[in-house]
């Protein structure tokens, strides 16, 4: 066999192959020639003949070179000559990136720790940015959103009162600053829509004035929106939302102009609008509320929310002055209703999102920015630690003539690559959080206008975050690295661990531990609060109770008598079902929202309180069986029964707190209360005699003030929109939902459509604690993240400390050190850092307790259980962080460690 490499290299000379590629080609071609030689020999050729014949494969000296010349691999960019002008920037950058990628791959654990840290930090920031973007940055999805203004009437006591329809009409006629003013009824109600096939469903509906869509600037996607003529004709017309149109009518354009039956009456569909019109309230149908020819009394009915669109170029201050002048004029013209009623204006964006939500968003952003800073500290830490091990490499490069800028650039490229990968993963983490968030955020916490979406803005934010983060954590180690003096670093080898950076790193990690302890403590307090709130004594004993809202149709049950008759028939029908123990009716449920709110009352025979301090109590209408159904005890007196009718003397039952606060020192039974709705202070009061005292129930799970209640018999104050309450003899109440609905259907098939909010009392209690749960989960998530980061930081310094001291551990082991001796320095390092961090964190716990005080319930700000639990959690997780480096230290083989250099 021969060595062909000389001949081959000669032929390849002049091609610009990379050295590695050239070696490969020489290897491959040599093999070919060798094999050719061997085959020829096997065929009987002499050594000389075989060698010559094989060499002929190379043909003339030029062929190989000529056929290779046009290949890409043979035309690599020229190497940079000393003193030659710099080559293209990009080529150099890609070289840097490749080198950086190799460096990261060489230390996968280091790279993974850094990338995971960054992915979590950037991911959380991305999710919170989506919230901030939705609430603070993004313009409302309507044309010229800057010109949209919310308008309220203002009195001395309520700066944002509703608007009376007649005032709205006058404003529209007289204003010189608004292009158009529309109105809406803020609450979205339900309408029963009958389908052609006999089915029916309840559809969310909002009443709006004819100019509503013009004010918002919403253009129809099919048909038209309301026009003044609709208002003049007092037409029964509706506009559908796009989503509803698609879902319910299959986007059929033929539905325009057709009548649909709502609450039993025909309404004409005039158009379809995009879902952006749902900005102020989520609804499927907008029904036109005609204000044309409203009676003069309508000037005293303040029930509308007005929305105005300013003329182009008009400021909100100018509009304010204009509207005040109009309000003054109206006050002079209609003194009885309009005296003292001014105008309040606010930009729509501000009004929709509210100062509180915007502050919360900013607070969140602040918190997660701190988390991101911890991430940066962590990665900087890892890089600093690595920089000490790379001292030698950098010293060699600098001795070979790499200038300082070149080295900084190389190190920054590594940081940015790390940040880039972390950022990309962070985007994924953020997306996951955003996808999971809607299920966790309690309803009503965010206005309807807030939609957390994933879009290009998020990607840009993520990229920017990664860039800033990469520069931030990369600069310090890069700067640190360039200050290395080549001579001593080369001379000393990598044996000396610089303790200079070590102290700084330990302080950083201790700070992280302190932050984690603080957040853990906060999370613990909120968790304890959640537990207290969930186990609160609700006052009633029934375990499982089914509830549903029933709303008798006005067309079928026009008067109280018919309504009561309906309730009674349904009650009988449901009672007849197997497995039903009792059935009752109630206007409000424990822990549920109060439908009637508070009523003013006075105890008859006692001095009347001043008007501004009139006491009020929660007003609840119940049927006689209510107390039995919920197993709510009566402390004294009697419950309601058949004696309490509309014709008999008015009676009521009060609760224990009511007696303590207003009837103490006397027998509550027989006391007489004068009761009237607080929403209508001038209404005629009803005098009711107290016949019983009920046990205290909770209005809210975390109420700090006892709920005062006045129960009134249904027969004496019949209402529609009432909850039916059904208690089973045994088992879970949820199973009764279907048979109960069927029973209602047997009484009145059409009525079935009004049945909604089918829930058990358990469900209601769960919803009532949703805010507490949300807060606890949120802060726990942050605490968990902070803890994780702190532990990654701890792991980082320990792992590097082990790597730095491989020799030392080796020597110790060679000298006969056991497990205990090897682990002692490591564990004591870890303990020092944890103890310092925990001490600072625990010392600051009083502060966070104070901050959270308003959110706590049934837990003291310095709860000892939480105080004890936090260090325990910390120690347990620290064990995990210590385990891996300890394992590595124990497995160091003395022989290898000593030979290592």
């Amino acid at each position, binding site marked *: 066999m021969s060595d062909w490499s000389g001949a081959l290299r000669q032929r390849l000379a002049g091609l610009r192959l990379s050295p590695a590629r050239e070696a490969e080609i020489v290897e491959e071609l040599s093999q070919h020639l060798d094999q050719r030689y061997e085959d020829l020999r096997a065929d009987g050729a002499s050594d000389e003949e075989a060698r010559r014949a094989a060499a002929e494969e190379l043909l003339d000296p030029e062929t190989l070179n000529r*056929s*290779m010349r*046009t290949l890409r691999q043979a035309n690599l960019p020229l190497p940079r000559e000393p003193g030659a002008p710099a080559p293209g920037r990009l080529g150099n950058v890609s070289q840097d990136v490749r080198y950086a990628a190799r460096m990261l791959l060489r230390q996968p654990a280091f790279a993974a720790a850094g990338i995971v840290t960054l992915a979590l930090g950037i991911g959380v920031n991305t999710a919170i940015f989506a919230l901030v973007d939705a609430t603070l940055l993004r313009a409302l999805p309507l044309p010229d959103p800057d010109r949209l203004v919310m308008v309220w009437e203002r009195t001395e006591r309520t700066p944002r009162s509703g608007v009376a329809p007649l005032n709205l009409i006058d404003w529209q006629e007289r204003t010189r600053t608004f292009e158009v003013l529309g109105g809406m009824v803020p609450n979205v109600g339900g309408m029963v829509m009958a389908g052609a096939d006999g089915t029916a469903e309840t559809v969310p509906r909002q009443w709006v004035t004819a100019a509503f869509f013009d004010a918002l600037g919403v253009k129809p996607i099919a048909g038209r929106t309301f026009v003044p003529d609709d208002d003049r004709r007092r037409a029964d017309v509706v506009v559908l939302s796009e989503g509803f149109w698609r879902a319910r009518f299959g986007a059929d354009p033929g539905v325009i102009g057709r009548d649909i039956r709502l609450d039993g009456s025909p309404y004409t569909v005039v158009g379809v609008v995009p879902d952006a019109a749902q900005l102020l309230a989520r609804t499927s149908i907008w029904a036109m509320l005609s204000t044309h020819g409203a009676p003069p009394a309508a000037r005293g009915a303040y029930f509308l929310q007005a929305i105005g669109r300013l003329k182009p170029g008009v400021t909100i201050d100018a509009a304010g002055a204009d509207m005040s002048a109009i309000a003054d004029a109206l006050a002079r013209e209609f003194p009885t209703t309009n005296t003292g009623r001014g105008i309040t204006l606010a930009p729509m964006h501000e009004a929709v999102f509210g100062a509180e939500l915007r502050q919360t968003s900013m607070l969140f952003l602040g918190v997660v920015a701190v988390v991101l800073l911890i991430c940066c500290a962590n990665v900087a830490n890892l890089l600093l630690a690595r920089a000490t091990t790379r001292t030698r490499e950098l010293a060699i490069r600098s001795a070979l003539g790499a200038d300082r800028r070149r080295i900084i650039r190389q190190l920054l490229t590594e940081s940015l690559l790390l940040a880039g990968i972390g950022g990309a993963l962070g985007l994924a983490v953020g997306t996951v959080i955003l996808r999971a968030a809607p299920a966790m955020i309690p309803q009503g916490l965010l206005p309807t206008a807030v939609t957390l979406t994933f879009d290009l803005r998020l990607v840009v934010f993520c990229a920017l975050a990664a860039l800033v983060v990469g520069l931030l954590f990369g600069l310090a180690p890069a700067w640190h690295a360039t200050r290395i003096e080549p001579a001593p670093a080369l001379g000393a080898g990598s044996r000396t661990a610089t303790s200079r950076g070590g102290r700084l790193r330990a302080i950083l990690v201790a700070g992280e531990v302190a932050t984690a302890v603080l957040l853990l403590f906060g999370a613990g307090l909120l968790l304890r609060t959640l537990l207290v709130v969930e186990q609160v004594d609700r006052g009633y004993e029934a375990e499982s109770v089914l509830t549903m809202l029933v709303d008798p149709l006005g067309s079928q049950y026009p008067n109280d008598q018919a309504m009561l008759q309906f309730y009674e028939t349904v009650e009988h029908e449901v009672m007849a079902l197997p497995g039903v123990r009792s059935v009752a009716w109630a206007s409000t449920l424990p822990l549920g929202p109060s439908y009637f709110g508070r009523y003013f009352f006075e105890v008859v025979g006692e001095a009347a309180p001043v008007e501004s301090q009139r006491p009020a109590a929660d007003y609840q209408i119940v049927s006689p069986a209510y107390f039995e159904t919920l197993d709510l005890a009566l402390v004294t007196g009697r419950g309601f029964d058949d004696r309490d009718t509309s014709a008999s003397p008015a009676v009521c039952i009060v609760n224990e707190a009511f007696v303590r606060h207003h009837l103490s020192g006397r027998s509550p039974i027989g006391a007489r209360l004068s009761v009237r709705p607080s929403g209508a202070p001038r209404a005629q009061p009803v005098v009711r005699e107290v016949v019983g005292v009920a046990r205290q129930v909770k209005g809210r799970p975390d109420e700090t003030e006892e709920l005062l209640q006045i129960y009134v018999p249904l027969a004496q104050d019949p209402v529609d929109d009432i909850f039916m309450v059904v208690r089973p003899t045994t088992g879970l109440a949820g199973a009764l939902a279907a048979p109960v609905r069927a029973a209602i259907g047997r009484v009145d098939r059409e009525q079935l459509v009004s049945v909604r909010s089918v829930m058990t009392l358990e469900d209601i209690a769960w919803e009532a604690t949703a805010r507490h749960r949300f807060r606890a989960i949120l802060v726990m998530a942050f605490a968990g993240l902070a803890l994780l980061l702190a532990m990654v930081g701890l792991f980082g310094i320990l792992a590097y400390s082990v790597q730095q001291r491989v020799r030392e551990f080796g020597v110790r082991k060679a000298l006969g050190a056991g497990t205990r001796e090897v682990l002692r320095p490591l564990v004591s390092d870890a303990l020092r850092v944890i103890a310092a961090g925990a001490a600072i964190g625990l010392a600051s716990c009083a502060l966070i307790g104070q901050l959270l005080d308003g959110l706590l319930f049934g837990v003291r700000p310095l709860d000892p259980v939480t105080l004890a639990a936090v260090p325990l959690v910390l120690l347990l997780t620290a064990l995990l962080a210590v385990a891996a480096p300890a394992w590595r230290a124990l497995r160091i083989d003395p022989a290898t460690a000593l030979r290592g250099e």
Partner: protein
Amino acid sequence: MLDRELKKGSAELIILSIVEERARHGYEISKLIEARSAGQLTFHVASLYPLLYRLEERGWLQGRWIEKAGERRRRFYGLTAEGRRVLARQRETWKSFVRAMGLVTGVDHV
């Protein structure tokens, strides 16, 4: 030996066909071409390998160093998905070319 020009145009097709069923190393490729053409076609080192590298740069072939126990590592060339498509296309072209030549010249190639 066939005409030089013809060989040059069809060299790619020949190599792609040779590695169609499985990846082969350079020497094996050259031996197979020689054997299958009954000695009519031969590729030398200086022409075969540049061609292999070119096909590799075009993404039609992929070369991989493969090490077998007790042997030196060798570079094996296999078809890529793109290479497979090109081969099918070139075969079609070749067939129609041969048919056309037959019709024009009256030479029966079948």
